[in-house]
Structure formats: structure tokens, C-alpha cells
């Protein structure tokens, strides 16, 4: 009975059946442009599977965003302006390269502070036990 139920059960489709966007899985012809696009895609967050970049994700929205990035790069737009356009839509959350702001300054400052503390500790322990 269980086997029959499984055999008869129709899968619930929760993904579009439409084909992916033209440049979702196709590289740009110009290798330099493709490299620029790829570098940008790796720093943009997939908004569906939030731990991944759009370069890594197979979500249909990520595919559409890759296509958008490649189309705009092919038209000669620079990566910074594409990133700014997306930040305007989704906020800083969309980028893995967060701009320095009131909320993000600890991210930028913490490594420097930690390095300084480390250097201080190292200096003191070397001074204590000189060779």
C-alpha cells in the first residue's frame, strides 16, 4: 500500500519549469569581461540560499542575477555600479564585500585591533625570556 502511495504521489513542484536565462550558465565571449563578471558574482549573495554567492547557487533567482551581471558587464558597466544598484534594492546584505558604515566598522577594525594586541603580547613574552 505504502509503495503504491509513493508510486502514485505526484511531486510537489516548487521550482519554475521555464528555461534558465541566456547568460545564467553561459560565459561571456570576452575572457576579460567574463573574469570581471565572475569576480563580482563571487561577492554577491544569493538571496534564496543565503550562505552562498550567486556564482555558487543553482537557485533560479541566482541564475537570473548572474545573467543580469553578465549582461551589464558586456554592455560596459563597471562592477562597482552594478553592486551599488543591487545594494539600492536589497541593502548591504546582498554584498559579501560590505562597505564601511556605522554598522560594519567593527568588521574592518577588529582584525587590526587583534593584530595590535597580538604584537603587544608577542613583544612582552619575548622581552620576558631573552635568549
Amino acid at each position, binding site marked *: 500500500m505504502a509503495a503504491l502511495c509513493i508510486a502514485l504521489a505526484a511531486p*510537489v*513542484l*516548487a*521550482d*519554475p*519549469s*521555464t528555461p534558465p*536565462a541566456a547568460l545564467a550558465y553561459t560565459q561571456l565571449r570576452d575572457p576579460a569581461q567574463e573574469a570581471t563578471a565572475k569576480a563580482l558574482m563571487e561577492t554577491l549573495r544569493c*538571496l*534564496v540560499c*543565503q550562505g552562498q554567492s550567486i556564482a555558487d547557487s543553482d537557485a*533560479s*533567482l541566482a541564475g*537570473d*542575477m548572474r*545573467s*543580469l551581471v553578465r549582461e551589464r558587464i558586456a554592455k560596459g558597466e563597471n562592477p562597482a555600479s552594478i553592486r551599488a544598484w*543591487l*545594494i*539600492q*534594492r*536589497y*541593502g548591504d*546584505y546582498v554584498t559579501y564585500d560590505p562597505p564601511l558604515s556605522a554598522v560594519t566598522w567593527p568588521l574592518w577594525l577588529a582584525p587590526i585591533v587583534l593584530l595590535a594586541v597580538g604584537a603587544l603580547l608577542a613583544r612582552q613574552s619575548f622581552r620576558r625570556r631573552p635568549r
Partner: protein
Amino acid sequence: MGRGMKRWMLWLPLAVFALLFAVVAAGLFRPADRTVRSAMIGKPIPNFTLPGMVPGKPGLATATLTAGRPHLVNVFASWCVPCIAEAPQLMRLKAMGVPIEGIAIRDTREDLLGFLRRNGDPYERIGDDQRSAVQVALGSSGVPESFVVDGAGTIVLQHVGDIRAEDVDDIAAAVRNAK
């Protein structure tokens, strides 16, 4: 370093551990909200023109949303399961006199017609967004999502996820107040 200082330093790792433990425990009991909200609230609706995809129903363009009447713009798809749950609430909003415009994400005509036949059709217009371009321009990250747009075309509210029975009155009020 003095003796007192050294004794104090002895407790430092434990204190740091306790602090880290507290941070992690707080995250465990009160997980962060992972909803991606649009940054377009309070901004004018972006410029777009989407063709129609259902016979007898026009597509959707910015001009419709800036013509002086507030609207509820519903981003949906026939392949989206929560959209089925949301459909009766949209029918209720329509019955309350809320003008509803649809943006169909990556849909086919046949699938969409079947969806409207099964779940009802609350839409005045449905725009065909094959490449999620308008969805991204709106700062929407999934289906279903709904935006209240005032008569001048400014986005005043975003509802992420399906509109439930308890949300209907608030959304109807937001559209009424969005003159």
C-alpha cells in the same frame, strides 16, 4: 607585571569563554531574522514594462502604478506552493475593493491559466517577468511577496511571504491610507 595583574590575567581566558558562550547561547535561543527586506520602501517604483501573458488581461507597466490610485502589487508564480495558500486572501482583498496587480515570475501561459482556474483570479493585470528582472528591481527575493504602492507610485510597504487571514485587514488599511 605585578602579582595582582598576573592573578587577574589567569581568569581572562575563562571570562572570554563565558562571554563567547553567552553570545552563542543568545543566538541559539533568539535566532536572527533571515528575512531579506527590500531597500526600496519609500522610493519610487522602478521603471518597467511587462507584457501580458493571459488572454484578455493586460500586462503591467509603471504608468499604471503612478496614475493616482494606490495598488497592491503581488509577486507570485504558479509553481509556488505558498501562493496557493495566499490566493483566498487575495480574493478577499479584491472583494474589499483593493486593486491587485500581478507580476508572474518565470511562468508559462498554460501553468498560469491552470493556477488562476484552480485558485481564483484577483488580478486586474498580470505582467510576465520571465527573467525575474522586475522582481530584482523591486528588491524582492522570492515568491510570494506583495508591495503596497501609493497613487504617486511610491512603494510604502512590503509583505514578505504569503498574506495570511490575519494580515488582510492591515494590508487593506495600508492600501486605503496610501492615497
